């Protein structure tokens, strides 16, 4: 997925960018409206993340202009304001969703996924490994010729594994990605989700290997 991030705070932009890249996305960064317009004019993006208070104007002005130019790239607003009326104003202007700073990165990812799913994006987002075809945005998993329904956490867990086959993930690392920080999660919970994924992947070329004391790894047979 190719994202455009319009954010004037470079530290925040760096943090978001590095985090998004970790998820396997490509990110361009603009720190003012004029740059953003230039990026949009030359490149095609699947999603725009837009800050409201920018040095050369209001992000909503860019949004209005963007919508007027007939581009239907979905836009998610990153706002620091918390007044509800402000949020509603942004949605009326054509934003597809918004997150309030500071945001949970998983929440942002979830909202991106939801917006992309709604827009039934034209971009191909499928990952193919062996006989397994996985579309993390639409949430489709095909094992052989069989469609499998995944719950949200199973989906995110599989996305992690399929983005980095062969990499070892510790239980804690997985827990931090799957659960928000406001609940304490036992490591058993991860075992439950890994167990479910294994069941879904039964009979395919993929399997999840347990490395005692280290964590889990996605391996491909043959």
């Amino acid at each position, binding site marked *: 997925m190719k994202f455009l991030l319009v954010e004037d705070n470079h530290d*925040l932009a760096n943090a978001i960018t590095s985090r998004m890249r970790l998820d396997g996305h490509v990110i361009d960064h603009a720190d003012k409206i004029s740059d953003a317009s230039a990026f949009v004019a030359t490149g095609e993006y699947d999603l725009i993340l837009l800050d409201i208070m920018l040095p050369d104007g209001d992000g909503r002005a860019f949004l209005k202009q963007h919508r007027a130019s007939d581009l239907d790239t979905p836009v998610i607003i990153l706002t620091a304001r918390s007044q509800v*009326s402000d949020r509603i104003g942004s949605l009326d202007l054509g934003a597809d969703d918004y997150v309030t*700073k*500071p945001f949970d990165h998983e929440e942002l990812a979830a909202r991106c996924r939801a917006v992309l799913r709604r827009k039934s994006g034209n971009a191909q987002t499928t990952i193919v490994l062996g006989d397994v075809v996985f579309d993390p945005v639409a949430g489709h998993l095909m094992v052989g010729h069989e469609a499998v329904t995944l*719950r949200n956490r199973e989906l995110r867990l599989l996305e992690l594994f399929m983005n980095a086959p062969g990499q070892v993930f510790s239980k804690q690392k997985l827990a931090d990605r799957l659960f928000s920080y406001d609940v304490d999660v036992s490591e058993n919970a991860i075992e439950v989700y890994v167990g479910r994924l294994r069941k879904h992947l039964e009979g395919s070329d993929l399997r999840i290997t347990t490395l005692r004391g280290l964590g889990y790894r996605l391996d491909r047979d043959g």
Partner: protein
Amino acid sequence: MDNPTVSGSLRYRLGLTLIGGAAVLAVLLFFAVRSYAVQVAQQGQDNILVASVTSMLDAAAIRDNAVEVDIPYAAFSMLTTPADDRVFYAIFQDGTFLSGYRDLGYLGPDAGLENIFGFANVRGVLVRQVSASRTLIGANKRTEVQIVLAQTQDALSATLDQISRNAALLGVGFFALAAALSVWATAATMGQLDRLTTSVTRRGPQDLRPFKNSVPQEMAPLVQSLNSLMARLDQSLSQSEDFIAEAAHRVRTPLATVRSYAEATLQRVDKEENREAMRSMVKAIDESSRAAGQLLDHAMITFRADHLEREDINLVELVRDLVLRMTPIAEMKDLSLSVQGDGSVPYAGDAILLQNAVRNLVDNAMKYGPAESLIDITVRAEPHPHIMVIDRGPGFPSHEISTLTLRFKRGQNAENTIGSGLGLTIAKDVAFAHGGGIKLENTLKGGACVTLSLSS
């Protein structure tokens, strides 16, 4: 709010002055009427006395060198009164008593055309007397006849009593009329002030436009200074709104930076104690940003509660929109949000406040509901519009149900979850502002059930 120090009342003072003035005037009127009446009545008696004494003097003549006074019948008959007043007379010739009552003394000059009036005491009775004289000229003699005529005043005082009573009635009537007028005048004057007060009170907290209504000249300076005060207030309010937005931006953006870095770092760090530190950091940031958000929400609700911006909304639609927006977060926890409604539940309310309240309730349900469970949101119109949120979590501790809607109060089982304890307070305040209330209970299976009801 500070109440002003009250000293005295304009209405009371004005009313008292006007009524007091009316009372003094009424008393003066009574005495004036009465003394005029006394004067007129006395004049009447005096005139009859003069007529009577004149006819007596007319009857005086010198016959055979002697003075003869043949008192005509009419002289006494004209003095008849309904009170049977008694009449006394005394006749003198050149100062020598001739006939009548010795008690009466001649007052006045020896010879004069004037009639002299006076009061005398005859046998213990007060009488009005008139002294008159006439010079008789005989063949070779000139003599002075003097007559004193007196009459008791029984009829006169009866008349005076009557007049006094009427004058008193007149005074009381005047007073009553004047008092009523004073009350009306006071009310009319104070009404101008009251009208201004009402139009100030009726205004919502956001309505800081200057007053344009016409006011009496005397009140113009007051309205003028009120308007300039409001202009200053408006300016400082919009400044502080900008300030809050700016402050939120300045605080939230770095928080977002720290949070994003911490999260990203968490993905790379392997050492468990470092990871634990990172997690605590993210938790603390979430807690403070959530608290800041709810404090702002709460301030906004307190601000708007006095002045609801009511519009016609469909509660089912409002809840569906909200749930659609919250679904991605719910999905992250594999929670399902289900909305059931009566199709359309029309209600005239403040959409922003209601959305805020329901969002807090669903937020709570998502915090306490276990993974892969269902959260039921029901919107019904009967018996009155209400929104019910049920989760499958542990429910409220039964001994805390009554205190949970207090500010900053959190349940004992909330130790492991993030929250400021304002969520239920916000929902309760919004319900109150719409004439409703909030009810907390546990379902039979143990989950929490919160009902936000609105006035029908």
